[in-house]
């Protein structure tokens, strides 16, 4: 998938993104971010645009199992990776343990940062950064919450991490 000539750089190329276990084909030009591909091309609006510059964490998804910011990832560069979004967590109507914990601990208010918090939390747990409250707080500081649900978010993550 090589585009040599900048004048044709605006041309959309067909790429395949593996999202939530399913191959999705879409036409994007090189500038389209993974976040915009999800939200505007694939109707997967669970990942949120908060700042579009990697400063708020609302766009967090898992890429090959690692938490990353989809607003700073080009869609073309994500071809070949396993992308997991919030829509891919629940299995047959059963919430993921992190989702369940967020509900139980009221770790949300307006809900807009919530998918990013949850994806980041799953990544954080996989990284083994949930030893105590202070470690969770530090490890989750890439996800801003203006509603101020932080203590409840930490409680939910501690609960889900077991």
């Amino acid at each position, binding site marked *: 998938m090589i585009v040599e000539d900048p004048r044709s750089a*605006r041309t959309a190329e067909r790429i395949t993104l593996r999202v939530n276990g399913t191959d999705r084909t879409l036409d994007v*030009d090189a*500038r*389209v971010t993974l976040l*915009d591909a999800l*939200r*505007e091309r694939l*109707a*997967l*609006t*669970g*990942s*949120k*645009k*908060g*700042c*579009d*510059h990697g*400063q*708020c964490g*609302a766009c967090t998804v898992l890429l090959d199992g690692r938490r990353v910011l989809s607003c700073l990832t080009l869609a073309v560069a994500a071809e070949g990776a396993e992308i997991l*979004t*919030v*829509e891919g*967590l*629940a299995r047959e109507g059963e*919430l993921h343990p992190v*989702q369940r914990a*967020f*509900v*139980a601990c*009221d770790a*949300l*208010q*307006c*809900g*807009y*940062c*919530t*998918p990013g918090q*949850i994806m980041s939390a799953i990544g954080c747990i996989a990284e083994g950064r949930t030893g105590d409250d*202070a470690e*969770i*707080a*530090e490890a*989750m*500081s890439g*996800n*801003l*919450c*203006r*509603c*101020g*649900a*932080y*203590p*409840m*978010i*930490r409680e939910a993550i501690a609960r889900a991490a077991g």
Partner: protein
Amino acid sequence: MTIAIGEARERVDAIAKVTGAATYSAEHQLDDVAFAVLVLSTVARGRIARIDDADARAVPGTLAVITHRNAPVLNGEITGRPGLDKHLLLLADDRIQFDRQPVAIVVAADLETAREAAALVRVEYASEPPIASVDDPRASWFFPKQTAHMEPPEIVRGDAASARAAAAVVVSATYTTPLENHNPIEPHASIAAWDGDRLTIYDATQGVFEERRKIAGVFGLPEDDVRIISPYVGGAFGNKGSVWYHQVFAAAAARIVDRPVKLVLDRDQMFAITGHRPHTRQTITFGADGDGTVTSFEHDVLATTSMFDVFTESAGEYTAMAYAFPNVIIRHRLVRTNFGTPTFMRAPGEATGTYALETALDELAEAVGIDPIALRLRNYAESDPNKEKPFSTKYLRECYARGAERFGWGARSRAPRSMRDGRELIGYGMAGGAYPAQIFDAAASVSMETDGRVTVRSGTQEIGQGTYTAIEQIAASELAIDPARVRLELGDTRYPRAMNSGGSTTIASVGSAVALACRDLARQLGGRSRPERRLSATATFTTPDDREGYSCYSFAAQFAEVGVDPDLRTVRVRRMFGVFDVGRVINARLAHSQFVGAMTMGIGMALFERTIVDPRTARIMNANLADYLLPTNADIGQIDAEALGIRDDIVNPIGTKPVGEIGICGAAAAVANAVYHATGRRIRDLPIGPRVLG
């Protein structure tokens, strides 16, 4: 099987939110949507000398470029509640009056093209030196006609000057708060679609009905031809309660390109064109007896507004009622600047007024050598000294007592720099606060099907405060049924009219309307558990007459513990505890989350937040979330809050007082007072941190 009000029921929209199913404004799926991007001015004052949009138009996929040369004529005069009229500068001419004023709308078939074309709109300006400071020699102050809640700009009781002259102790200081921005995580976003002359806007708004009225006014449409839809709002805090530029321009663009248009603001754009909390400079002077009884109180509030609108950050409304000060003069003055028009930001006036007064009281307490709580008790207001009415309920003493006990205030040694934890300097600070219980008119309908399902409808909003949950709980309680049978539909002008979700009024106003409608429905049911045919009832709630003789407020006592590194001067809030008198609590979990969230915003106000403006250009230089510092998870230690839960039978039929904003009232002062106690340094300009403590 009655579910009691007060039960900490799980948020009913939580599952939609944790699965990504909740639909926010930019996420509604429409066919054939085009994308609009705004071009904003890069000067704050002057004129557009030239716009060259040829390169923008030449980008394949660009559908339209709208500037002042070809913009449709729109009515930019927005009438609001009294004193809150506003002007939108809708590409009517070449004049620039604030940094990042809209100068063009670019519409394209996809987002990347719209952004590319927007960057190619080349604008040249004849710029003039802007007014970027209250101290600019060209800036002269004036009195607004009234404050935000329609008080006179000058509030006078007795003779403050004489009382001060005769006072044993005089303490005076000036406090400043910077420009602040709301920064909800969801950017403002609208999708506008026309069907002939009928307009639908999917929006993120605190008020679908107010928006409908204002949009109709801008476009000269009958209100019935405008529909606003907003089922979920990703945070607001005051800056989604108005019609700004993005809704109007999305609709205008949609009409021009004859397709639905989606317009999502960039984060930096939000700083300029969705309102902000203005800068305040507040001077407080006490005259007092040697025991701390205040005999004279003077409060001068100087705040900024835009060149073309008046918004009054009414910090003196709190100070006029909070304590039994007998001789008082409070003034609100404004200065016009080349900033955008400010707006309500969580506890508008109360957040800034509590910061100044509750810090000043701390200084007075120290000057006369008594405990800060004792000082407040000595000046306790049994009734509202400004309105000269009794409070409907006031349990502030209980808040102080409960807070002091739970927090461990008694362990505080009075002298600054007297407490440590290892190397860290520890400080304890406290403050009080109050927030008025307003009522906005609200209507609601309730219907019950033959299978017992209940649908409640109201044109109100869910901005995270828990409307869906609390209203369903109220309805269920009134009808003595399981809340799982109740479903609230909101955020649509097709539903009964309600006012903005602002001023912490939603539960009280809509909840009361719902309660009244449910009582009617219950009468119709006549004791049966299910009807034989569908039943419905509608009710409207307005301010009860029997409340007229009372002053209704929520009250707060805030306690903060900070740790300050003595060398590096970093400040951390280790612990914070608030006790709130908010009447009856509908849902303890929702209320707790609101308190904690607002206290967190108070920590941001005290330690981190300020919108930085280049004084030469009036350009906002930190219009992003890396440089405008919101509290992170790691900044928030142990925060807890408690509501006294004592119901108020006068304020409204369901006994609740406001919850959503009381949590920020006094929070910043409690933190600032704690920093003083830890360090012995009194910083009177927010935010406080290592740059200034050094």
